[in-house]
C-alpha cells in the first residue's frame, strides 16, 4: 500500500510549490498543481476504501522516518492504514478535491489565489497525517497542522479585522483543548510507557480499575486519561464550552467552511474518540461525559441555529449540532454509527456549504437570508443541490422501505442506538437528539424557505444596492431592484452535483457495512455486537421518532415562513427574553470575554506595571542604584568611574583569591 505515501505527500508537495512559488508561478499553474494533486490522492484513496469494504485489504503501517527518541519515549513518522483510516481517506480526499475544483469558480476574482490553494492543500496534508497517525504524537501533529491551516484560511482575507479576530480565536480556543490533549498524552505515556496507539489500545483494558494521582487527587486512571483526551476532541470538534470559535470561523471563504469547518477538521475529535475506542471502553465514566457533552451540544447548537440570519452561521451551528450526535453515538458505544454519521455528514454538509456559497456568489456576497427570497427560479441548479442537502440533513426517508437520504440512515441509527443502550445518559442523549432533530428540520427548512421561496427581498441588502446602484426608495415596488442573480459557473456546479449524489445515496449504500458489520471495521474500532443487534429491537415509535419530528419541523417552518410570514416576528415579540438569549448564542462570548480575555489583559498590565516596574525594579536594581549613588558621595575618592579600572580590580581580586585557594 505504498500509494498511501503519494496520497499524503502529494498535497504537501503541491502546497509547498504553490505557496513558495506564489505570484511567480501564477494562478493557473498553482491551481492545476494543487487540484491535480488532490484528484490523484482521491483516485488513489477510493481503491483502498473499496478494498476494505470487500474485505481484500489488510491493515498495515508504512514507516516514513524516525522522529523522536528520548529515553523510553519514542515515536516515529509512520502512516497507518486500516478501515477507520480508509473511511477518513475517502472523505478527506473526495471533499477536498471537490472543494479545490469549486474554488476555481468561487475564488476566481481573488487576487491571492496561489496562497489560497496552497493553504487548502496544506490543510489536506495535515488532515491526512492526522488520520494516518500510528501514535498519539503524530496525531497531535496533524491536529495542530489542521489548526494552523484553519487559522490561515479563516484569516485569509487578512485585511478584515473580523477575519483576523476570528482566526486568532479559533487558534487560541483550540489550544485550550490541546492543553487537555497534551496532558492526556503525557498521562498515557506515564501509564502505558508508550505513545503507540496499537500498544496503548492493547494494554488499556487491563488498566481498568487502576488509580492514579492527578493534581493531588487519586482518580481512576482510564477515566482521567480519556477525559483529558476528550477535552482535546471538544476543542477541535467545537463541543459545548469550546464551540465559540466555530461560528466566527465563517469569516473564512465559503469553500474553507465546507472543507474544514464541516466535512473534515471538525470531525477530528470524533475520529480521535473512535480511534481510541478500546481505551474509552475501559472508562465508563468518561464515556458518560462524552455522551452528555455530545447530547448537550446537539441540542444547544440547534437552538441557536433556529434564530440566526446569516446563512453560513445557520449551517455552522448545524455542524456543531451534528457533531454532538456523533459524540453521543460514540459515548453510548456505537462507534460505527458515529463514523457513519461522520461519513454521510461530510457529503451533505459540504454540499450545503458549497450550495450556500453558490447562493452567496449569486447574490453579490450577501449572506443575510432576510435579503434573499424567491431564488429557486433564478438559480435552479443550486436550488436542487441545496434541496438534496436539506433532504439529507433533515433525514427524509421511508422507514418501511428502508431507504432515504443520507442523514435518514445515519441519524436514525444514532437515535436508535442511544435508546437501545438503555443507560441514563443514553436516554438523555436520545431525547436531546429527538428535540435537536426537530430543530434541525425547522432551521433547515427555514433556510430553504427564506432563500428560495417567498417574495424577493433583495434590495434591502447593501451588497445588492451597490451592485445595482439604487436605494430601496428609488426602486419602489420592485424589491428585486432590477438585480439578476446568476447561476454559478461549471467549476462550482460539478462539485455540487457530485456531492448531491453522495447526499442522496451515501446512507443507503453504506448503511449495512458501517452499522451492522464488525467484519468491515476489522478491529480498527471497538465494535459492540450486542448493541448492534439491540438497536434493531427498539420500539417502532423510536424508529419513527426522527421521521415524525422531521415532519413537525417542516410543517412549523412552512407555516412560519410561507403560510403566515408575520408569525416569526410575533413569536419573537411574545418571547423576547428567550429569543434574545438564544439569538445572542446563550451569551458564551460575552461570558468568556469577562472571565478570561479581559482579566488576562488586566493581569498582564498589573504584572508589568506594578510587578516588574513597581516592585522588582524599584526595590531591585533601581533601589540598588539609589543606595549606590548615596554611598558614592563618600566613596567617590576611590572610584574613578571607568570600566577598565573596575575590571582591573576584579582581575586582581580574582588572582588574589586563586592564589589563596591554591596555596591553601
Amino acid at each position, binding site marked *: 500500500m505504498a500509494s498511501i505515501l503519494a496520497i499524503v505527500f502529494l498535497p504537501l508537495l503541491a502546497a509547498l510549490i504553490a505557496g513558495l512559488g506564489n505570484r511567480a508561478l501564477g494562478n493557473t499553474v498553482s491551481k492545476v498543481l494543487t487540484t491535480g494533486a488532490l484528484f490523484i490522492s482521491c483516485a488513489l484513496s477510493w481503491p483502498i476504501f473499496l478494498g476494505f469494504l470487500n474485505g481484500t485489504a489488510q491493515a498495515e503501517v508504512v514507516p516514513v522516518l524516525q522522529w523522536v527518541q528520548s529515553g*523510553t519515549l519514542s515515536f516515529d513518522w509512520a502512516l497507518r492504514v486500516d478501515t477507520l483510516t480508509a473511511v477518513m481517506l475517502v472523505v478527506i480526499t473526495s471533499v477536498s478535491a471537490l472543494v479545490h475544483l469549486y474554488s476555481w469558480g468561487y475564488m476566481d476574482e481573488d487576487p491571492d489565489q496561489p496562497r489560497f490553494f496552497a493553504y487548502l492543500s496544506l490543510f489536506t496534508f495535515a488532515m491526512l497525517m492526522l488520520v494516518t497517525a500510528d501514535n498519539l504524537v503524530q496525531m497531535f501533529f496533524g491536529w495542530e497542522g489542521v489548526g494552523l491551516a484553519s487559522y490561515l484560511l479563516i484569516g485569509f482575507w487578512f485585511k478584515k479585522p473580523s477575519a483576523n479576530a476570528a482566526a486568532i480565536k479559533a487558534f*487560541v480556543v483550540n489550544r485550550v483543548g490541546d*492543553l487537555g490533549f497534551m496532558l492526556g498524552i*503525557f498521562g498515557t*505515556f506515564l501509564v502505558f510507557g508508550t505513545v503507540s496507539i496499537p500498544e496503548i489500545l492493547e494494554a488499556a483494558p487491563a488498566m481498568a480499575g487502576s488509580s492514579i494521582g492527578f493534581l493531588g487527587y487519586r482518580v481512576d486512571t482510564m477515566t482521567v486519561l480519556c477525559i483529558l483526551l476528550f477535552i482535546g476532541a471538544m476543542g477541535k470538534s467545537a463541543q459545548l464550552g469550546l464551540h465559540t470559535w466555530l461560528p466566527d470561523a465563517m469569516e473564512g471563504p465559503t469553500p474553507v467552511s465546507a472543507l474544514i469547518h464541516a466535512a473534515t477538521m471538525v470531525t477530528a475529535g470524533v475520529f480521535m474518540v473512535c480511534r481510541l475506542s478500546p481505551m474509552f471502553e475501559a472508562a465508563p465514566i468518561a464515556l458518560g461525559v462524552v455522551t452528555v457533552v455530545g447530547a448537550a451540544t446537539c441540542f444547544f447548537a440547534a437552538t441557536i441555529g433556529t434564530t440566526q440570519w446569516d446563512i453560513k452561521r445557520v449551517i455552522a451551528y448545524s455542524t456543531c449540532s451534528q457533531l454532538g450526535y456523533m459524540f453521543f453515538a460514540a459515548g453510548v458505544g456505537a462507534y460505527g454509527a458515529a463514523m457513519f454519521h461522520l461519513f454521510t455528514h461530510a457529503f451533505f454538509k459540504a454540499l450545503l456549504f458549497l450550495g450556500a456559497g453558490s447562493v452567496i456568489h449569486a447574490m453579490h456576497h450577501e449572506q443575510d437570508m432576510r435579503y434573499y427570497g424567491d431564488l429557486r427560479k433564478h438559480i435552479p441548479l443550486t436550488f436542487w443541490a441545496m434541496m438534496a442537502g436539506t433532504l439529507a440533513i433533515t433525514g427524509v426517508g421511508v422507514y418501511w422501505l428502508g431507504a432515504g437520504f443520507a442523514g435518514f440512515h445515519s441519524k436514525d441509527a444514532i437515535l436508535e442506538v442511544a435508546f437501545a443502550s438503555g443507560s441514563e445518559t443514553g436516554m438523555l442523549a436520545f431525547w436531546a437528539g429527538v428535540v435537536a432533530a426537530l430543530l434541525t428540520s425547522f432551521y433547515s427548512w427555514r433556510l430553504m424557505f427564506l432563500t428560495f421561496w417567498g417574495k424577493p427581498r433583495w434590495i434591502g441588502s447593501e451588497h445588492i444596492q451597490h451592485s445595482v446602484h439604487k436605494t430601496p426608495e428609488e426602486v419602489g415596488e420592485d424589491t428585486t431592484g432590477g438585480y439578476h442573480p446568476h447561476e454559478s459557473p461549471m467549476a462550482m456546479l460539478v462539485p455540487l452535483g457530485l456531492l448531491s449524489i453522495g447526499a442522496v445515496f451515501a446512507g443507503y449504500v453504506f448503511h449495512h457495512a458501517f452499522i451492522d458489520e464488525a467484519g468491515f471495521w476489522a478491529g480498527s474500532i471497538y465494535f459492540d455486537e450486542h448493541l448492534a443487534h439491540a438497536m434493531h429491537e427498539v420500539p417502532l415509535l423510536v424508529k419513527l421518532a426522527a421521521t415524525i419530528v422531521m415532519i413537525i419541523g417542516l410543517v412549523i417552518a412552512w407555516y412560519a415562513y410561507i403560510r403566515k410570514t408575520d408569525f416569526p416576528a410575533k413569536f419573537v415579540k411574545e418571547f423576547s427574553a428567550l429569543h434574545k438569549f438564544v439569538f445572542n448564542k446563550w451569551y458564551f462570548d460575552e461570558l468568556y470575554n469577562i472571565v478570561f480575555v479581559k482579566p488576562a489583559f488586566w493581569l498582564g498590565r498589573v504584572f508589568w506595571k506594578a510587578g516588574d516596574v513597581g516592585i522588582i525594579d524599584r526595590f531591585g*536594581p533601581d533601589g540598588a542604584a539609589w543606595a549606590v549613588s548615596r554611598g558614592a558621595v563618600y566613596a567617590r575618592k576611590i572610584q574613578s568611574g571607568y570600566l577598565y579600572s573596575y575590571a582591573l580590580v576584579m582581575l586582581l581580586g580574582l588572582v588574589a583569591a586563586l592564589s589563596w585557594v*591554591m596555596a591553601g
Partner: protein
Amino acid sequence: MAGFPILTLMLLVPLVAATACLFVEAKAARSVALVATLINLALGVVLWANYEIGGAQWQFTERVELFAGFSYALGIDGIALMLIVLSVFLMPICIGASWESIQKRVGEYMAAFLLMETLMIGVFAAQDLFLFYIFFEAGLIPMYLIIGIWGGDNRIYAAYKFFLYTLLGSVLMLIAMMWMVNEAGTSDIPTLMAYDFAENAQTWLWLAFFASFAVKMPMWPVHTWLPDAHVQAPTAGSIILAGVLLKMGGYGFIRFSLPMFPEASAQFVWLVFTLSMIAVIYTSLVALVQQDMKKLIAYSSVAHMGIVTAGAFAFNVQGIEGSMIMMLSHGLVSGALFLAVGVIYDRLHTREIDRYGGLSINMPQYAIFFMLFTMASIGLPGTSGFVAEFLSLAGIYQVSTWVTLVCTTGIILGAAYMLYLYRRVVFGEQKNADAAAMPDLTMRELAMMVPLALAVLWMGVYPESFLAPMRADIAALDARIARAAPEGDSQLKIGPPKSDKADAAHGEEAEHGGAH
C-alpha cells in the same frame, strides 16, 4: 582528528580576527568578521562531524597545566557540542544583521562580537572550574559594551542594569567555587561532576550557583534586566543575547547544579518549579500587553526559559533532553524573531507595533518567514519548538501534574501573544504609508533567514541529529542524579481488573466493604 587542538583553534580564530578588526577601517572589519565567523562555523561542522557518538564522554580534550593547579583544560561532551554548534551557527547571522545597521565604530563593534564568540565557545568548552568562570563572567563585558555603545536611546540604563544583575549573582558563585576546589582538591569539572559533597554543604553551594544561573536564565523575579537589555541592544546583540547568553544559565544548571549537587537539587525542586511556573504565566501575560516588539519577544523568552528550568529539574531523561532541545530551539527561534524585528526596524526605525500593519501585502516573503518563526515559538509540531515543549512537559508530568498543567497553560498564552503580535504587524490594513512602502527581504536578509528556517524545521522533523550526540551524556546525568530523584505525584496503582461496565456501579459498595 586525534590530538589536533580544534577547540583552541576555534577560540583563536575570532580572537585574532577581533584584534585585526580594531586596526582596519569599517568595510574591511565587516569582511574580516564575516570570514572569521564563517571559518568558525566550518570548524563547528567539522567538530560535529568528528564527534564520536557513543565514544568517550569527553572528546577533543586539551590540557595545559598552569600555576597552582589551575589549568587550561578544554573538552566537550554532546551537550557542550550542541551549544557550541548553536553559537557558531548564529554568529555569521549576527555579523550579517549588523552589516548595514551599524555605521559607527564598526571595527570596535565587530571586535566586541568576535571576542564574545571566543568567550561563548570557551564557556561551553572549559573543563576547569576557574577557566569556566573567567569565560562566563568575561562574556558580560563585550555584551555590556555592545548595549552601552551601539544601543538605543536608553542604553546606559539598560547596560547598567544588565551588568549589575549578572555581576551580583556571580560573586556568590565565585566564592562557592573556591570552597569547592578547596574541598575536592581539584578544579577539574569532570572530576567535580562525580564528587559527592556533603549534603549540608550542597545546600549552600547550590544556592550560590543558583544566584548566578537564575539571573543568566533569567528566572522570575530576576528577569527585569532582560527586556531592557533586548530593547536597547542592536539587533545582533539581541540575537546573541537570546540565542546563546541565556543558555549559559541552563547549561550551568545541567553541567554544575544537577550533577555536582544532586541532593540539594532535589531539595530545591519546589523552588525551581515555583519560579518556573510563575515565569511561564506571569511573563506570558505581560507579553500580551506589550506595545514594543522586542519587549514582547524578550518576555516570551523568559516564559520559554521557565520550561527549560522546570524540565531540567524534572530529574528524568525526557525532562533534561527537552530542556536542552528547548535551549537549542529557543536559540534559533528567538534569534530568528529578533532578526525579523530587526529587518523591519532597519526600514522604519521603530519597535512600536502599531506603526506597522499589513506587511504581508508589501513584504510577502517576510510574512512567510515571520509566520514560520511565530509558529515555532508557539510550539507547532513539525518545528523545533514542539519537540522542545513536548519532551520537557512529558518529563515534568512524571514529577508533578500540577506543574505540568500550569506550564502547559503557557501554550495557550503563547499562542495568544504571538498571534496577536503577528496580526498587528503583518495582517490588517496598510494603515501607515511609510510601513506600506517598505521593500521585501533583500538577498542579504534572505541569506540569514533561510538557514534559520531550515534549522528550525530540521530540528522539528528529525531532532535525532541533535538528540543523538547528547543521549549518552544525559543518560549519565540521569543515572547520577537518580538517587535523589523526587517521587512523582502520579503513582499508578493497578487495581483489580473489572470484568465489565456493571462493576462501576458496585464500586461504592466495595469501598464500604474495606477494599482499600
